[in-house]
């Protein structure tokens, strides 16, 4: 037996759009296996998952809130992958953004609120972006593999944060690794009463539009795509590949940094060691499931937010460990990969 894979004629657009939906359905069906192994009741598990995430106004808004950082990291990864800059470092860039936002927020200057918020965002964006330009520089100048450096730098930033939280940024009088609270003036306003729906959610949606605009309407977006499709051809076509990679890294890291900003100035109000439960890594799954398209990223970020928020009430009601959310994320990525393959290739098993 041998697997033979052959190209198929391009499928119509509507099938292409259905692929992620199909992948999600298959993933949810496959999730039955770990749920059953954990002894959870299937019907109750699925209903509690969706009710927990979407059942009430508060839960629905909570899912939107959780989707914001996931959208930012998803956009960050998607934009980088589109240019074949393998940024697996969204986690570290998120932390860099969170640290910068906390710093500005704790020592907020006496300015109008709008200016302080702008300052917080700019600081977080630049910190994340700057952190991402290190692997980009190493890639373009020294040909160091970007996968490895972006991954390793996640741990470096985590330890830098640890140093700050046990040192200069530690709350006075506290023995825990946590910073003082950010000033009220530096906090994102809550936009809908009786919820945590904050400015950052809207910023995430704006970021979706901005990334779409950059991709579709700007020279930079075109160049980034060209570099991703074929770097040598792009260089022959007169594109400064190194400059494009650097700018891609800056934008990608900046977007990831914004995820950290929201977590500090809208959710936790302190910088904490566990400020991110792996949002940066989830961004990889979200980017792939969203087919690297900004709107797709937003939709798949929402889906994963449903899974993450819903898994908590599923866990409470059925006893299935809350880590089911991570298992589902991992399965979704692999199912999506296979689904994408099926849209481009026919797979046949033949007797050899």
């Amino acid at each position, binding site marked *: 037996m041998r*697997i*033979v*894979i052959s190209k198929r004629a391009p499928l119509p657009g509507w099938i292409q759009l259905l692929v992620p939906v199909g992948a999600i359905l298959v993933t949810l069906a496959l999730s039955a296996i770990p749920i059953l192994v*954990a002894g959870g009741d299937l019907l109750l598990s699925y209903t509690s998952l969706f009710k927990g995430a979407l059942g009430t106004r508060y839960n629905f808004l909570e899912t939107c809130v959780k989707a914001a950082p996931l959208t930012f990291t998803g956009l960050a990864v998607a934009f980088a992958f589109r240019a074949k800059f393998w940024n697996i470092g969204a986690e570290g860039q998120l932390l860099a953004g969170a640290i910068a936002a906390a710093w500005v927020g704790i020592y907020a200057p006496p300015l109008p609120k709008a200016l302080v918020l702008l300052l917080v965002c700019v600081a977080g964006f630049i910190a994340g972006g700057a952190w991402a330009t290190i692997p980009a520089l190493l890639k373009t100048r020294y040909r160091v593999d970007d*996968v490895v450096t972006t991954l390793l730098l996640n741990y*470096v930033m985590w330890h830098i944060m*640890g140093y700050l939280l046990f040192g200069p940024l530690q709350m006075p009088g506290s023995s825990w690794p946590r910073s003082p609270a950010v000033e009220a003036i530096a906090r994102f306003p809550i936009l809908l009463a009786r919820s945590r729906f904050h400015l950052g959610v809207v910023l995430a949606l704006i970021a979706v539009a901005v990334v779409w605009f950059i991709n579709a309407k700007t020279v930079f977006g075109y160049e980034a795509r060209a570099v991703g499709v074929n770097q040598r051809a792009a260089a022959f076509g007169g594109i400064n590949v190194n400059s494009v990679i650097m700018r891609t890294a800056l934008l990608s890291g900046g977007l990831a940094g914004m995820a950290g900003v929201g977590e500090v100035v809208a959710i936790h109000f302190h910088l904490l060691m566990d400020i991110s439960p792996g949002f940066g890594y989830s961004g990889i799954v979200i980017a792939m499931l969203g087919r690297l398209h900004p709107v797709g990223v937003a939709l798949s970020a929402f889906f994963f937010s449903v899974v993450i928020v819903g898994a908590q009430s599923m866990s409470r009601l059925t006893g299935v460990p809350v880590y089911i959310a991570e*298992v589902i994320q991992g399965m979704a*990525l692999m199912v999506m990969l296979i689904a994408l393959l099926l849209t481009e290739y026919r797979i046949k098993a033949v007797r050899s």
Partner: protein
Amino acid sequence: MEQVLTVAFITGLLAAMMRMATPIIFATLGEILCERAGVLNLGIEGIMLMGAMTGFLTTLGTGSLWLGVAAAAAVGVLLSLLMSLLAVHLGLSQHVSGLGITLFSTGLAMFVYRLAVGSPVNPPTVRPFTQVAIPFLSEIPVVGQAFFNQYSLVYLALLLVPAICFLLYRTSWGLSIRTVGENPFAADTVGIGVNKTRTLCVMAGGALMGVGGAFLTLAHQNMFLIDVIGGRGWIAIAMVIFGNWDPVRGTAGALIFGFLDALQLRLQGLGFDVPFHLFLVIPYVMTVVALVGVSRRASAPAGLLKPYRREEKG
């Protein structure tokens, strides 16, 4: 300063270096096998975590440490089969397949561990491996206790280095592996099963990664914590590049990393007034710096990252 220069300190430092390096040596050797056959296995971090978890639970349940090690190897092989289905047989992006394996395995490891032990206040522990002194050699001053009074798995890791060198450079299997990694089309022409060879290498590599993970929960420590691997898999990926895809040089890199890791622990233990997080960062930063030094000269197997589809040639 005089505390640093004592014989006891140096012996302890070298012994700790061996302990810190061992999981990375296993993982680096495993990854070299995969990459020499043309498969970048980014599932390494997750496979190590699953190995650590499976080995720990097996030993917790059966009381047998070696059964734990065997279970860790077996789970590494199973996850590698998934990896090779995606990246070898279906020819999907090796980057994304590997990350998928890591994300899936990470979730699964936490899920299964929580399912098996619940959430007790004190995590369960096993009675870990004890050191085995090699007669005579362990009595050599300074280095004897460091190198020859170690866990069996440390000796195993060191013995695997020449064994894998022999396999890769001195056997016809090794030639097949290297040919598949460098030029799969040529390998196919002379009748080597490209995907079969790649699958076997990924499986063997996965077993080593699993054992590397199990070393952390069965010898280095005696419990399973969610961040027990802590990026050691990524360090191994870096060591493969640092060692230019050669088992001996990759192992040397792992030993240097182990030395830095041991040094930061020891200096911290002596109460040097330096924040320990800055110490923890040193091995990672040094690894990145080392990569800058070697990357221009690095020569990856030419077939790395390229799926092999006979139908797509010519």
